[in-house]
C-alpha cells in the first residue's frame, strides 16, 4: 500500500462516480388524471411553493382545510422554499421534488414530459383555462398557473394629481412629461428603479406585447429583432433610458431597497414604479401599515396605444405541476384542480383568475372602464425564445442588461443608447442564425 496507489484509486473512483450524473427518471409521458370520486382519493401529498409568507402565516393551511372538505382523505403538506429556483433545480436531479410543485423557470419545455405528469390535452384545457400554451408540449399540458398578472405602472394617485396629471399618458413622451411635472411640482421621486434588487428591472421585459398590441409578440422575439426600430423592447428600453437620463429617478440607484420602497410609494415619497397588478395588494398593505390611504395606490398601463386603445398582456405566475414520480398523482391532480378553480387564491391576491370565464379583479376595473385590451400572448415559441436568450447571454429575463442600460443612462459607463441596443440585437440575431431558426 503505497501512498500513490491509494490516491490514484481515490481519484479514480471519484471520476467513476461522476460519470453517472443527471440521469434520473427515464419514465416519460405519464398522466395525472382527475379523480372521479373525491371521497375515494387518498394519500399524503407535499406541495413545494415559493410563497413562504403564506406558509408561515397559515394561509396555506387554511386552503388545505377547505380542500379537505371536498377531499377528506388527502393530507396536504407544504414545503415553503425561500430560494425556490435554486433549490428546486437541484432537487429535480433526484426523484424527490414533492408531489405538486411550481415549474422552475430553468426547466426547458422539452423536458417537461420527463419531470411532470400531464394534466390533459391543450385542446380541451384551453377552453376553460388561460395560459395553457405556456406549458404545452406536443399538444399536452403539463402545468397550470393558479393566477395571472398584468404588468403595468403602480403609481401614487395623490402625487400624480398634485402634479396636475389626471389622465394616463398615451405615449412615452407624454409619460416623460408627466414625470417631469411630478419632479418640479412635488417632492416625490418620479420613478424608482429598484436597481439594486434587480428583478424589478427585469420586469420591463413584460412590456413586450403592450406596444404592438400583438398576441404574437413572443413569436416575434423568436423570429425577429427585439430591438428593431419601433419594436416593443426597444420602446420600453428607450423609455427607461430617458427616464434615467433626464434624472427622473432616485439619487443613488446602486443602493436601492425593495422592501423600503413599498411604504415610500404608499406615502407618496415615490410616485411610480414599473411592476405588475400583483404588486398592488402589497402596496396597499404597506399603505395601511404606514398610515397612508390604500386608495391612493393606482395602476396604469404602458404609455402606448394602438388604434386608440391601450393594451396589456396577461402573464402567468409559476405553473403548478404534478411530479411524474409522485405516488399519489390523483390526489396531486385534485389539489391543482381545486387550487386553480375553487380556492379563491387569485381573488385573494387581487389578480387575474386563470379561468377564462371569471370577471376581471377589482384592481383592473379601471382598465375595463378605460377599455384596455387584455392580451393572452401566444407562447408556442416561448421555449425557443428562452433558448436564444440563454445561448446569446443577452438575458431579457435577467437583470444584467437593464442594469447596464441604467448605468449607461446615468453616465456611469460610456456609450450611446443606439450602440448598446444594436449590440444586443446583434448578439440576439446572431444566435438566432446559429441555432438555425
Amino acid at each position, binding site marked *: 500500500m503505497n501512498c500513490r496507489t491509494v490516491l490514484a484509486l481515490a481519484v479514480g473512483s471519484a471520476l467513476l462516480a461522476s460519470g453517472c450524473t*443527471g440521469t434520473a427518471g427515464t419514465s416519460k409521458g405519464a398522466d395525472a388524471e382527475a379523480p372521479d370520486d373525491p371521497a375515494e382519493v387518498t394519500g399524503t401529498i407535499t406541495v413545494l411553493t415559493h410563497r413562504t409568507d403564506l406558509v408561515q402565516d397559515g394561509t396555506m393551511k387554511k386552503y388545505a382545510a377547505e380542500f379537505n372538505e371536498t377531499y377528506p382523505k388527502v393530507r396536504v403538506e407544504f414545503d415553503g422554499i425561500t430560494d425556490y429556483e435554486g433549490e428546486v433545480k437541484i432537487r429535480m436531479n433526484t426523484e424527490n421534488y414533492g408531489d405538486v410543485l411550481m415549474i422552475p423557470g430553468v426547466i426547458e419545455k422539452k*423536458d417537461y414530459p420527463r419531470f411532470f405528469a400531464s394534466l390533459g390535452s391543450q385542446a380541451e384545457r384551453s377552453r376553460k383555462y388561460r395560459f395553457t400554451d405556456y406549458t404545452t408540449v406536443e399538444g399536452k399540458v403539463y402545468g397550470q398557473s393558479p393566477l395571472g398578472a398584468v404588468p403595468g405602472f403602480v403609481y401614487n394617485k395623490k402625487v400624480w394629481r398634485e402634479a396636475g396629471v389626471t389622465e394616463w399618458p398615451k405615449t412615452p413622451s407624454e409619460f416623460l412629461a408627466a414625470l417631469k411635472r411630478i419632479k418640479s411640482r412635488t417632492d416625490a421621486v418620479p420613478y424608482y428603479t429598484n436597481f439594486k434588487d434587480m428583478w424589478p428591472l427585469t420586469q420591463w421585459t413584460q412590456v413586450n406585447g403592450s406596444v404592438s398590441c400583438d398576441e404574437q409578440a413572443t413569436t416575434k422575439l423568436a423570429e425577429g429583432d427585439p430591438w428593431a426600430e419601433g419594436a416593443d423592447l426597444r420602446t420600453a428600453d428607450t423609455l427607461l433610458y430617458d427616464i434615467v437620463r433626464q434624472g427622473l429617478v432616485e439619487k443613488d440607484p446602486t*443602493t436601492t431597497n425593495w422592501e423600503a420602497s413599498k411604504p415610500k410609494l404608499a406615502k407618496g415619497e415615490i410616485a411610480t414604479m414599473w411592476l405588475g397588478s400583483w404588486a398592488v395588494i402589497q402596496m396597499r398593505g404597506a399603505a395601511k401599515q404606514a398610515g397612508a390611504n390604500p386608495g391612493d395606490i393606482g395602476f396604469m398601463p404602458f404609455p402606448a396605444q394602438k388604434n386608440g386603445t391601450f393594451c396589456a398582456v396577461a402573464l402567468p405566475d409559476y405553473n403548478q405541476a404534478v411530479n411524474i414520480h409522485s405516488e399519489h398523482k390523483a390526489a396531486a391532480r385534485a389539489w391543482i384542480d381545486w387550487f386553480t378553480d375553487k380556492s379563491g387564491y387569485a381573488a385573494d391576491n387581487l389578480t387575474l383568475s386563470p379561468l377564462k370565464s371569471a370577471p376581471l379583479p377589482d384592481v383592473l376595473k379601471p382598465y375595463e372602464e378605460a377599455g384596455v385590451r387584455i392580451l393572452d400572448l401566444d407562447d408556442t415559441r416561448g421555449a425557443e425564445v428562452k433558448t436564444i436568450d440563454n445561448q446569446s447571454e443577452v438575458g431579457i429575463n435577467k437583470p444584467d442588461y437593464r442594469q447596464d442600460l441604467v448605468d449607461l443612462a446615468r453616465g456611469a459607463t460610456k456609450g450611446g443608447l443606439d450602440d448598446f441596443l444594436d449590440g444586443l440585437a446583434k448578439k440576439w440575431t446572431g444566435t438566432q442564425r446559429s441555432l438555425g431558426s
Partner: protein
Amino acid sequence: MTDTTEKTARAPVSGPPAPAAPRPARRWRGATPWLFLLAPLTLLIVFTYAPIANMVAYSFTDWDGVSPELRYTGAGNYAELFTRSDLFEVFWVSGYYLAASVFQIAAALYFATILSFNVRFRNFFKGVLFFPYLINGVAIGFVFLYFFQDGGTLDSVLGLLGVETDRAWLGTPVSANTSLAAVSVWRYLGLNFVLFLGAIQAIPGELYEAAELDGANRWQQFRHIIAPGIRPVLSLSVILSVSGSLSVFEIPYVMTGGATGTETFVIQTVKLAFQFNKTGLASAAAVVLLLIILAVTWVQRRLVPDDKVDLV
C-alpha cells in the same frame, strides 16, 4: 509518530529478547496511520475531490444544470472560453483587489510589528484588528451596503468631520470597485495580521535583547530580525492575496451583484451557470481559474524560493 507506535507495539512483549514482531502485528502497524486518516480522507474525497472531478467532467459537456440529457462536447467549452476575449476582461477588476492587497499586507505587517512590541492595550487592539475576519462575509456585504448608502454611515461620518461629498460611492465603476476593495481590506486585514503576529512572536526573544544590547533601534530590529524571520509567512500571504484577488466573490456579489463594472471572474462564472444555464461552460471557466491560480503560485514560488530561515 513512528517512534510512538513502535513503543506501544513492543510494550507487551516481555521476558526473553523477542524476535522480530509477528507478521499480523506488523501489518496492523502499517495500517494504523491509514485508519487514522480514514475519516478525514473520506470527507476530503467525498466533499472536495469528487465534486472537482465532477466539475472537470461537466466541463467537457453541454449540460444545462438540470436536464437529464447531456452531450459530450470535447474541448468545445474550452475553445469557446479562449476565443471570447470578453470573458477575460473581467480580470481587470481583480486589479483593484490586487492593489488593495498590497496595501493590506503592508498595513498588516505594520500593525503586527507594532503590537509585537510592548504597547499599552495591545490585546485590545489585536482583538479590534482580528474581529472583522470572524464576521460572515454576507453579513459584511449587507452592513457595508448601508455604510455606502446615500446619506448612510459613511456620509454621516464625513458630515460630522465637515466634509460634504454627496457622491454615490457605488455609482461609477472606479468608485464602486475601490469601495468594494476597501471592504475586502477591512475584512481580510485581520487574517494577515494574525499570521504575521504569530510568525513574529515565534522569533526567539534573546535576539531582540541581543540587538538592543548592540544598540539597534526599532527599524533596524525590523529590518534584520523580523523581516527575514517572517519571510515564509510573507510569501504565503502574497500567494493567498493573489489567488484571493483573482477569485473575489462574496463581497461584490452581495453588494452590487456585479453591476456597474464590478463583475469578477467568479461572479461571471456563477451567472453563466445559474442564469444562462451554461453549466458546462461555467465548469470549464472554473477549471481555467484553478489552472491560472496554480500557474501564478508556481511562478511566484520560482521567483521567490522558500528558503529555510536561519536567524542564529
